[in-house]
């Protein structure tokens, strides 16, 4: 995946976060890819993460194995989510 499609995916995911969690006062550009989504950063909590996971499943058909210890890490930032989605899409393509 080249740099511009990756940036587009990040923006798409930022928008998905806003739409899913009704963060109406924000725009995609307000969530920098490296900003932590939880705690200090955007201030999301663990239930928001679940809502987000469901939205990502609907949109990108992502899968998370129950023994995936990295699940939490995938949700850390917009950038990590984009990388996760991209890796799943790449896995499907093969």
């Amino acid at each position, binding site marked *: 995946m080249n740099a511009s499609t990756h940036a587009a995916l990040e923006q798409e995911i930022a928008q998905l976060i806003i739409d899913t969690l009704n963060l109406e006062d924000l725009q995609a550009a307000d969530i920098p890819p490296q900003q932590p989504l939880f705690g200090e950063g955007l201030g999301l909590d663990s239930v928001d993460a679940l809502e987000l996971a469901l939205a990502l*499943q609907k949109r990108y058909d992502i899968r998370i194995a129950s023994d995936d210890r990295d699940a939490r890490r995938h949700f850390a930032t917009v950038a990590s989510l984009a990388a996760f989605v991209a890796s799943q899409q790449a896995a499907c393509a093969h």
Partner: protein
Amino acid sequence: MSEAQLATPRHWSAQRERGNLLLMRFTAFAARHCGRRLLSPLLHLIVLYFFLTGRRARRSISDYLQHLAAWSGRTELRPTPRRVFAQFMAFAECLLDRLDVWRGALRFEQVRVLDPDGLRAQLLASRHGGRGQLLVGTHLGNLDVCRALAELGEQVPLNVLVHTHHVAHLNRLLGEAGEQRMRLIQVSELDAALMLDLSQRLERGEWLAMAGDRVPLHEGRRATVDFLGRPAPFAQGPWLLAGLLGCPVNLMCCLKIAGQYEIRLERFLDAPAWARGQRDATIAQWAQRYADRLAEWCLLAPQQWFNFYPYWDAADA
């Protein structure tokens, strides 16, 4: 008993888990090898033993009857030793009925279904491409009888969410008992992998069932509601799940009324959702509505409250 033990009533899951597993093993064994007539005196003896030795359980039932009588204004429900004992005996009856359910001796035709919202039709419809729904049960009455639901749902898979760690074992027992459609899933904490799994099950037309009247192991995720006029901690889990999955939520209970089991099914929430920032308030509201409904059901069958552990806030006692 030490002061610390008195101050923190043991959690029901610590108390019940081992007992439940043994009970299920026993039930599965007994179901295969003996009949109700043989087991009835034995079970009544066991229950009598628990009544005599279980001070905490006696006390808990007494509290329940006290609150129920005060809240409803029905003084005839006030606890007396005889009434508390009757509650234990009703539990023995319930265990024997469970055994019949396991043996397949309690046929679906013997159970009355009160289904004003037509949920049975929806259950059947999910076999043909519909989305699944959530069923929230209670430990008032006999949940096992609702297994008959699996029969009426024919091929609709029912996933029962439980706190117990013995899921693999219990699933094997269910399999041995010839139960194909019911599956237990352990939920101690909601995580993303589990959420995705549950969501996919709903999309495939499977249904999810869980109890609404047991508080979770962890301190968090509970809402304090008014139940029979007193503050009691209720689980947030079912309502959290409902809001996240956005599927219809139904209540289910099975009471024995005048010797006959009646399964009550009713719609509770059509499309659960919360507004941003209103999540906790919304969940608390749903938990309160559930507690209110449960209280009404308690009055239909006061003796069938089978939560034999301190149910209300200790601070309120």
